[in-house]
């Protein structure tokens, strides 16, 4: 049933992308801080989950540890780097993934270093395993969506939007910007870390360069820009469209797919600066008809 498993695999990645995009939206879309730390959180969650399982911790617990580790790390990191703005914050967040990758690479005894880490194999059939991880990612995606919707509608989301539009005025009006930003940053990490832990168990073998890949930081940003920042449906739509484009490119440009992806990113920035949701499709279609 190769065909069926391919669809399930695609659907699982779809859920993963939703989690990544919605998570980045907390810090990048709502709060306006351009974080490139998603890869750091993902890799941290993946390795925490993997190492725990390697030490005999049951899978379910290992996943939760992965999420917690990413969250705690984000809180600490956030308190340190969230007072930087603009470019400096972006670079700091970018560099963190690299530093973590190097540390994981060197801690060979614990993590297997550059040779990667093999996770214990599950006593399930290939089909059952595929379905299990789809359901897990699906539940995580739903959890992320619900959190995003809640935050958007209540005090935290409102405060974050104030911070994004005018951080000084936000402080003056009684918003403790430090706490709010750190909360957003932590939210941007917890589900990502969890997903990382799932991912490690799903693929059974991880390497530092694989789970700390900078693309895990850039893709969610592109997905959210594709949809619309700051909303709940925007990142989801962006994730769906992005996956669709990515699969298209994979199947047609195997060797050059990264390059084509790069071109797509460039095209996006130019032709959809406000994302798909900002495009007035009716006007666009009407305009074409008039020609």
């Amino acid at each position, binding site marked *: 049933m190769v065909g069926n498993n391919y669809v399930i695999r695609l659907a699982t990645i779809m859920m993963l992308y939703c989690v990544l995009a919605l998570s980045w939206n907390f810090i990048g879309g709502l709060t306006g801080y351009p974080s490139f730390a998603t890869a750091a959180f993902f890799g941290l969650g993946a390795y925490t989950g993997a190492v725990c399982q390697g030490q005999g911790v049951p899978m379910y617990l290992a996943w939760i540890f992965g999420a917690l580790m990413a969250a705690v790390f984000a809180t600490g990191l956030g308190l340190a780097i969230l007072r930087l703005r603009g470019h400096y914050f972006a670079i700091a967040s970018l560099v963190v993934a690299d530093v973590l990758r190097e540390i994981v690479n060197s801690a060979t005894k614990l993590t297997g270093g550059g040779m990667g880490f093999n996770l214990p194999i599950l006593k399930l059939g290939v089909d059952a395993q595929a379905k299990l991880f789809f359901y897990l990612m699906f539940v995580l995606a739903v959890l992320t969506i619900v959190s995003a919707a809640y935050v958007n509608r209540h005090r935290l989301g409102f405060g974050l*939007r104030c911070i994004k539009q005018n951080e000084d005025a936000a*402080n003056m009006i009684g918003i*403790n910007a430090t706490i709010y930003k750190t909360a957003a940053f932590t939210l941007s990490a917890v589900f990502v870390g969890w997903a990382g832990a799932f991912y490690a168990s799903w693929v059974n073998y991880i390497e530092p360069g694989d789970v700390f890949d900078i693309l895990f930081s850039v893709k969610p940003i592109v997905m959210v820009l594709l949809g619309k920042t700051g909303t709940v449906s925007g990142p989801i739509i962006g994730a769906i469209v992005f996956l669709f484009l990515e699969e298209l490119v994979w199947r047609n440009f195997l060797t050059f797919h990264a390059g084509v992806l790069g071109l797509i990113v460039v095209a996006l920035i130019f032709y959809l600066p406000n994302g798909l949701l900002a495009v007035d499709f009716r006007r666009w279609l009407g305009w074409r008809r008039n020609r």
Partner: protein
Amino acid sequence: MSAILQLQGVTRQFGGLMALNNVSFDLRPGEIVGLIGPNGAGKTTLVNLVTAVYGLTRGKIFFDGRQIDGMKSHEISRLGVARTFQIVQPFPQMTVLENVAAGALFAAGARNLVEAKEKALEHLKFVGLADLAGSSASALTLADRKRLELAKSLAMKPKLLLLDEVNAGLSNVEINRALDLIRRLVERGTTILLIEHLMKVVLAVCSRIIVLHHGQMIAEGIPSEVVRHPRVIEAYLGSRFASRAQRNSDHG
């Protein structure tokens, strides 16, 4: 009656520049005090120090009996201090209502967004912006933006309101409207520190005036005395006019 705001020896240095030098005064609850002085005298810096935009180099500030220098801006806001900005600082992508609701929600302790918006509408009615509640904050005229700024501050339920040049750029009609609002605020018991350069406004509403020049307090008292104070005249008009005024008052 104890002071609601107390500045003791407040000094702020920026590198080589002494922006404020040993300024001390008290504000009593329910007063409207005018803060005047030529450009660069340190008026906005004073407001920035009270609201913790900058820290003090020396001195102490007390609000409602508590020492607030050293606290963070948002904490001071929640204690009951609100200010307007000379160059208005709205949240540009939000509506007028949301802008004011932010003040109600984060500083005045509204329980949720819905309640904050209800309170916000009341404040908008008070300043006369209720029919623009749904408009985007960035689409307002300057006068309306100033009123929005005021409404936002009011939503914070302040005990002390620091108004920084609320009348800059307004027409006479608009200024009179603003004065009316200010008077009604004082009736409600809010203490106001009014930074102004329009003397007619200051003379119209203020019970006391403090004059700053080059970061130092050069005069303090009731309006009629302050305007005749030689150092004040010298600061605004130069020493020739000051000595002429001095000679006139000696003869008259």
